[in-house]
């Protein structure tokens, strides 16, 4: 019985620490905001140029001048500030964001990430993903463990074009959690989803990993 999307988001939320500045990607990472542990306060950055993202606006109160990086209407908080996209990515590239949680298509055992392009399909672009994985201090990827076809997504080496090489610190899938050493010393399985066995993970994984559960 693997983790649900919400379970994965809840697990990712455990990576948050009080006072963290965090950037959340589209999809499951967005759900992480619903699972922030009590007593912990984090500030959400939106890479188009905002710090201190608030929740969606009430019906009828959306402001076209206030959107997040997913182009959704949002709100501001008392603590919010706005800045240009150049200043926003200076913040990201300069290592000022503590944590980025984003989705993935493939992750390799050395922390490579592919999540922006499938050759042969229409390419929409990498947006800010390459900057985020290159600049943010700690990168957590949340993704399904296998393709719909059953093909593994945690690989020895990605075969899709990379978003970044050696950039992932932690991989959370529906089957468990892997710590990855960016410098190439390998991956370790550190947690299993409820009812999932090491054997199941092994059978669905191409990447080499040590067991530390």
């Amino acid at each position, binding site marked *: 019985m693997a983790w649900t999307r919400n379970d994965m988001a809840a697990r990712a939320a455990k990576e948050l620490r009080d006072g963290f500045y965090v950037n959340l990607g589209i999809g499951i990472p967005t759900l992480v905001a619903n699972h922030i542990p009590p007593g912990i306060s984090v500030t959400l950055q939106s*890479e188009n140029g905002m710090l201190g993202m608030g929740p*969606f606006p009430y019906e009828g109160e959306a402001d076209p*001048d206030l959107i997040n990086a997913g182009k959704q209407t949002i709100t501001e908080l008392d603590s919010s500030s706005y800045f240009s*996209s150049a200043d926003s*990515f200076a913040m990201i*590239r300069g290592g000022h964001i503590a944590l980025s949680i984003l989705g993935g298509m493939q992750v390799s055992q050395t922390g490579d990430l592919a999540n922006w392009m499938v050759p042969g399909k229409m390419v929409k672009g990498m947006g800010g993903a*390459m*900057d985020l994985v290159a*600049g943010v201090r700690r990168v957590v990827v949340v993704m399904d463990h296998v393709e719909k076809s059953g093909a593994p997504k945690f690989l020895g080496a990605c075969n899709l074009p990379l978003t*970044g090489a050696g950039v992932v610190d932690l991989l959370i899938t529906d089957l468990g959690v892997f710590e990855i050493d960016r410098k190439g010393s390998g991956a370790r399985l550190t947690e299993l989803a409820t009812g999932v066995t090491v054997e199941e993970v092994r059978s669905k994984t191409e990447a080499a990993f040590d067991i530390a559960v």
Partner: protein
Amino acid sequence: MASKLRDDAAAALTGALFDGMTIMSGGFGLCGIPENLIAAIRDSGVRGLTVISNNCGVDGFGLGLLLATGQIDKMISSYVGENKLFEQLYLSGRLQLEFNPQGTLAERIRAGGAGIPAFFTRTGVGTLVAEGKEVRDFDGELYLMERGLTADLAIVKAWKGDAEGNLIYRKTARNFNPMMATAGRVTVAEVEHLVPVGDLDKDAIHTPGIFVDAVFQGARFEKRIEQLTTRPKEVA
């Protein structure tokens, strides 16, 4: 002093357009885009454009208008394809496309306006973006060299502006507008509210007038929302 004030978008663009030119256009998605200037560029009929903009609008709005008329030859962007037409034009080879990581695009424009011909960034090392670019080790880390970007014309949209060309943007509609204002050989700004010189808070001006060659109050702003997301009002 010769005034920078213009009556409308067409007047503000007089003499600034030519076939084959490069235009930077501010905005992120449909947020903070120079609506009136894009429409005037469409109406001008100028062709063969290279457009530098983070996105390319949607069908029938924003830069999508210039796709529909076939005026754009090439886009330099970080994320596109919010509209069907873009995909058709690209797949049929009628539109060239250069992808830049969003932060690299923003920094390239900032560098272009700041007299910096090239800089190094970690973004894109080991990816397709690195192809053909110099990779260099600084203190044990690898970085790519990226070049500054300028344009023949930058079109930007601000919330408030004055006749000196001083501009203030509002919330996340700021996005790429301030850097682009610095990187156009000619920069034209449309504002929602034209205010008397002296009304803007001098400490809060985002774009000093030196960067702006012509400014006008937009006739009307549609300010379309691309993805309306809301929550129900809590009942007391």
